[in-house]
């Protein structure tokens, strides 16, 4: 459904394409993922500049994403203001001296968001190379696992399955990766490879279960993956305190650290946390894009996702596809999980080592419009928010939870483009196909 060469009017869509006046060609596709490959449609082309202007304020993917970000930040700003007693106090006499309230709010909000930027992209005050690279390094560190979990959810989505289990699959991935990381005495290089593959295997097993249940009994994968998430967590908390796994020198729930030979190499030297996981992430994105758009399996997967009955009639084994999709999705999430313990985020298993990467992966997949390169960019945005959020917390005292709020709000607005369109009075755009309605009930 994302064939970039198609110049036909948009495929079936919730929003009627009739409102559309801007382009009769499949243009205005500001989505970076496809921008490079989108050729002009047939017929006389309006000038590029005019098209750009027309599409700038239209409800296309890029504009909606950007405006969703803006809206989320506005809500975030309101939250910051109402939760700050000092600033809130200035609103008590806003009719007498409005400048006080405005200045105080502006200082609070602008400082917080400036720190968000400085922590994730670039800090102008940086003097050394390391300090200048540090924000980017942090962003990439947080991005890498999210790319994997996002791809996991997106891949399943394309196959018509809603994989809420990325969290559990990542958990199983992290468990096997860590076990391979500190139990197997292997030479460097091979050890890392085995640990990474073990992570993928753990996730794949955890993805196989809902896949086979869906294929064999029709049990809804949403329910099963939610349940498996929790089973994985309890398994992790049990495993950590077992003999041979728990760190012998500690009494709390923490496992032995992963051997140095199984750790992903750092990219910018020892001072910075960015590790080779981000390279794996780019490779994985490319692989998933190839799988989806160029391979037979990808075609079958998309066919099953679009209409299982039609796919079955066409001779595609829906059962096999469901199982394979979930195994691949699980393996991706497992790889994402393994980054958390083989990378620089943590070196040992703890009950909270997986953080939220699985659930964040759902948001990332939705934000990336369930397309591989879109997912990678969305993960980059979320990684940046996470990295910047850390700085915002330590410098401005704004809780890191605000980042969760921002992320959730962005996705809410993305998921309801009609709302964003109404708020900003956007023009309709045919290219904005926001396919979030893929899972259908239980």
């Amino acid at each position: 459904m994302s064939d970039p060469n198609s110049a036909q009017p948009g495929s079936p869509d919730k929003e009627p394409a009739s409102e559309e006046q801007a382009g009769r060609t499949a243009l205005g596709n500001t989505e970076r993922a496809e921008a490079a490959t989108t050729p002009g449609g047939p017929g006389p082309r309006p000038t590029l500049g005019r098209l750009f202007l027309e599409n700038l304020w239209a409800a296309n993917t890029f504009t909606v994403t950007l405006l969703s970000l803006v809206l989320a930040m506005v809500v975030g700003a309101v939250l910051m203001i109402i939760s700050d007693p000092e600033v809130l106090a200035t609103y008590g006499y806003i009719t007498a001296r409005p400048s006080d309230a405005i200045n105080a709010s502006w200082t609070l909000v602008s400082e917080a968001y400036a720190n968000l930027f400085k922590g994730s992209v670039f800090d102008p005050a940086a003097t050394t190379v390391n300090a200048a690279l540090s924000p980017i390094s942090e962003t990439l560190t947080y991005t890498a696992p999210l790319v994997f979990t996002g791809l996991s959810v997106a891949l399943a989505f394309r196959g018509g399955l809603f994989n809420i289990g990325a969290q559990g699959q990542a958990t199983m991935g992290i468990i096997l990766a860590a076990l391979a990381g500190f139990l197997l005495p292997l030479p460097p290089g091979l050890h890392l490879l085995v640990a990474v593959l073990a992570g993928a295997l753990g996730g794949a097993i955890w993805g196989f279960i809902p896949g086979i249940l869906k294929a064999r009994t029709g049990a809804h994968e949403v329910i099963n993956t939610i349940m498996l998430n929790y089973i994985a967590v309890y398994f992790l908390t049990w495993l950590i305190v077992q003999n041979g796994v728990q760190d012998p020198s500690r009494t709390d729930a923490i496992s032995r650290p992963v051997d140095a030979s199984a750790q992903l190499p750092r990219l910018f030297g020892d001072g910075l946390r960015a590790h080779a996981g981000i390279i794996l992430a780019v490779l994985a994105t490319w692989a998933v894009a190839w799988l989806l758009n160029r391979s037979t399996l990808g075609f079958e997967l998309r066919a099953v996702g679009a209409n299982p009955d039609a796919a079955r009639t066409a001779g595609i084994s829906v059962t096999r596809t469901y199982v394979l999709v979930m195994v691949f999705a699980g393996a991706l999430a497992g790889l994402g999980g393994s980054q958390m313990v083989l990378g620089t985020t943590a070196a040992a298993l703890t009950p909270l080592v997986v953080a939220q990467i699985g659930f964040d992966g759902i948001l990332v997949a939705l934000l990336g419009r369930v397309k591989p390169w879109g997912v990678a960019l969305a993960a980059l945005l979320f990684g940046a928010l996470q990295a910047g959020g850390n700085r915002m917390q330590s410098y401005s005292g704004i809780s890191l939870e605000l980042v969760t709020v921002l992320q959730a709000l962005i996705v809410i607005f993305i998921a309801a483009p009609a709302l964003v369109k109404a708020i900003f009075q956007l023009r309709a755009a045919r290219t904005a196909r926001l396919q979030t309605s893929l899972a259908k009930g239980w």
Partner: protein
Amino acid sequence: MSTTAVPDVAVAAVDEGFWTRNRKVGLVLLALGLLAAVLFGALATGEQARFTLSEDAAGAALEVKGTVGAIVFGLIALAAGGSMLAGLPKRWFVPVLAVGLVAFVLSFLCWQVSAAPTGQNFMPLVNIVRGTFLLALPLIFGSLAGVLCERSGVVNVAIEGQLLMGAFSGALFGSISGNVWVGLLAAAIGGSLISLLLAVFSIRYLVDQVVMGIVLNLLAVGITGFLYERLMQTDAARYNSAPRFSNWEIPLLSDIPLLGPALFRGNIFLYLALLLVLVIHIALFRTRWGLRTRSVGEHPTAADTLGVRVLGLRYRNVIMAGAVAGIGGASYTLALFSFTKNMIGGKGFIALAALIFGRWSPTGALLAALFFGFADQLATYLGAINSVIPGQFLAMLPYLATILAVAGLVGRVRAPAADGKPYIKG
């Protein structure tokens, strides 16, 4: 997808021939009984396993020798399984299954209690029952919220968020006002705010309901966590010290042995939960509103044709569901603990499991919630007597049970037909 001719995806396990579903269940039960009689019997000690009808070792008790109990109850489960395998009449299926499962659990308990460290070979039943209800409380409210929502055709994955928001606003406004009732009202409103978002986005903007639920959970975690750090942590005395409901003793009923002290000396939330189960059950199956709700959940087009306002009804039910879940969240902050970050910790998802396990009915949800609460309480108890069974595995039980139920291994569960499908009037 059940209309296809090519049997690629096995849509429903149609059991033909000798191996009917009942026989398969019987076989499983037989195996469990055998396991109980042999393994539990062998592991149990000769100590007396005492099940006391009080909060401690004192008082009247049901006593049985560990080994004897484990073996006898195991044999009962075995017999129940065997009779199913032999071809039991259908109407006897459920009672016999119940007897078999209970016997299995009792066999397990005989082993565990008799194998406990010396001096701890007793199980205080009052504590167990009370703990079961206490731990089940948020699950009951949560799954009732699910019933209200999903019976009218809106999937409610946001139970976790509604509980959390209820707990938070109950604590915040209860503290500010110093009044429990204000807190309770605020909790209901807080929960319904989350479900209002769910309603607006899934009904008006047609956002996928599962997606919306997941995102709303994260939003609730974010907002409450943020405000908790900004307000409650900096000034706990002002923002996080809500007054609490005291326990109300119901005269006469509270004197019933075992159930009295466990059930009728609780706080308002316990009574409210049981009352709500009753009210929602009657309302759903005996009133006009219930009929309309169910028809909207099963076949909205038909309901619309007959003049039911589908969308209006859905809005109303979803918002009510939020209020119920919000009160459930307050059962933490207005009765037990002060608010902490992410204090619901996955209970909303167990509530979802209870809803599914209870087959989308209020009474089923209650029973499922109690079962899950019991598993939780049992884990605590086994931890206290240093059992060899890790608590984590018992904690997995609700989730495993739900997977088995959904996969059709213990009876097929079926959601309302239109659950999760937005209705577009046309």
